[in-house]
């Protein structure tokens, strides 16, 4: 079968699976598949859009229902439009349809398709994706990350569920751009910054503009270019690190990891985020060795070789691990 056909078929399979609900394993497989190739993403977006559009057909449901098997589905008169979907769909989809119905009503019902609830975008380990948003903003996703995006004429919202994202937000004072990172919220008008989430710890790094970070207990701080804000255990901390250092932290956008005098254990942790083959450091003293430099994030083997040659360490490869010792 031709390559293009295989992609269309795969995308169609995923639409069918989403239609019945994905298991966790399937969700991960889907995220991986999406992140592999832009062709996968556009094929998915197209078929998903067609299936969603077809939901309008529910307006045709007749007053009497289809004859049912033993434990039959619904009986009863037809109800208006999208309300049908509520009885069948999963809880998330129910909320989404409810929101969509409200938003369509609020906006006069002339839009044939509005995406109200967040569409997920995810990357696999080692993956990176650039996503243009409807308002002209741009979102870049780093390794092993997941966001949901909802940009519409009323609001601009993102949920960062996992990982790290860089935002280049188009200025629009009438629609503040809000990123929900678990409890904390990040609000901007138009700026460039990154947000990193590891479980419940959040780090915001600003390279341009002003970013308001609000913790769960309502404490807020406004970060300026060069500022790094961390939220840990509901505490906000602001550190002025300088724009250049923060841009180094965002080296991943160009596929690089940049370190200034970092410990080997920190460097290894960063490599391990981006690679499925993991560095393991067995000796606590070795873990404290200081490393500086710029490395290709996917070249963990090259880095290991460098540790051997330049730092005189021992490297042993075993399965998915690269073990570093004295």
């Amino acid at each position, binding site marked *: 079968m031709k390559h293009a056909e295989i992609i269309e078929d795969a995308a169609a399979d995923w639409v069918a699976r989403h239609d019945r609900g994905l298991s966790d394993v399937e969700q991960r497989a889907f995220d991986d598949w999406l992140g592999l190739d832009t062709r996968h993403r556009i094929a998915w977006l197209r078929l998903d859009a067609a299936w969603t559009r*077809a939901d309008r057909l529910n307006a045709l449901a007749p007053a009497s229902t289809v004859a049912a098997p033993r434990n039959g589905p619904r009986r009863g008169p037809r109800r208006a439009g999208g309300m049908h979907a509520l009885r069948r769909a999963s809880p998330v989809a129910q909320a989404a349809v409810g929101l969509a119905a409200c938003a369509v009503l609020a906006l006069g019902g002339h839009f044939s398709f509005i995406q109200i609830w967040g569409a997920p975008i995810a990357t696999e380990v080692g993956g990176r994706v650039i996503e243009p948003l409807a308002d002209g903003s741009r979102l870049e996703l780093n390794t092993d990350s997941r966001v949901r995006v909802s940009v519409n004429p009323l609001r601009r919202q993102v949920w960062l569920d996992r990982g790290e994202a860089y935002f280049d937000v188009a200025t629009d004072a009438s629609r503040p751009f809000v990123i929900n990172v678990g409890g904390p919220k990040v609000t901007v008008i138009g700026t460039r910054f990154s947000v990193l989430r590891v479980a419940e710890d959040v780090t915001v790094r600003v390279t341009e503009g002003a970013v308001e970070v609000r913790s769960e207990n309502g404490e807020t701080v406004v970060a300026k270019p060069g500022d790094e804000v961390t939220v840990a255990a509901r505490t906000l901390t602001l550190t002025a690190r300088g724009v250049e250092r923060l841009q180094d932290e965002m080296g991943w956008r160009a596929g690089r990891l940049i370190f200034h005098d970092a410990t080997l254990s920190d460097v290894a942790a960063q490599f391990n985020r981006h690679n499925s083959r993991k560095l393991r450091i067995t000796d606590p003293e070795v873990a404290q060795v200081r490393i500086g430099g710029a490395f290709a994030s996917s070249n963990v083997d090259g880095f290991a070789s460098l540790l051997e040659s330049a730092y005189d360490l021992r490297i042993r490869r075993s399965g998915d691990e690269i073990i570093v010792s004295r």
Partner: protein
Amino acid sequence: MWFVRSVLPLESGLNRFLSRKMRRDDDSTDLRQEVYARVYEAAGRNGLPLNARAFVFTTARNLLIDRARRERIVSMEYVADLETVTPVDDLGATERQLSAREELRRLQDILERLPPRCREVVRLRRIEQLSQRETAQHMGITEDTVERQLGKGVRILAEHFFGEEAGPEMTSAHRLRRNSGRRGEV
């Protein structure tokens, strides 16, 4: 999102252009995917284009030129012909936005054109709002088959919904006449 709202509605115009300009050996699905992928990535790198229509068209034209140039024997006439074409000529009049009712009518039309089992699955899922399990029970088929038919149905839905013109309501005869002129075979 931008891609769904601003690019997909251009598909019928894109298909018209590609079917006229592509070579015999070209695969229209492959070309469409490649155009979309390039458009998507370019928007990600450089920001959203001001004029989606012109951008999609230019990307398609440049893709055809790229491919033609990589052939062993380059057809200079073919390339020159592509290079002289402009957006205004080839993507036709602006399609208007359909009203909710027109869109429903269109979907109904497309539903009628699905193969029987496919059509029944889509009907039960989308009109009767049965779950996939209930659909399988009702039709006496496995849930796997329901998924497969749904997948098949959504592909055909997309082909017609995005790939064909959203003109005024067409009668069957009218539709047949228009279809026969467009591509070698659907």
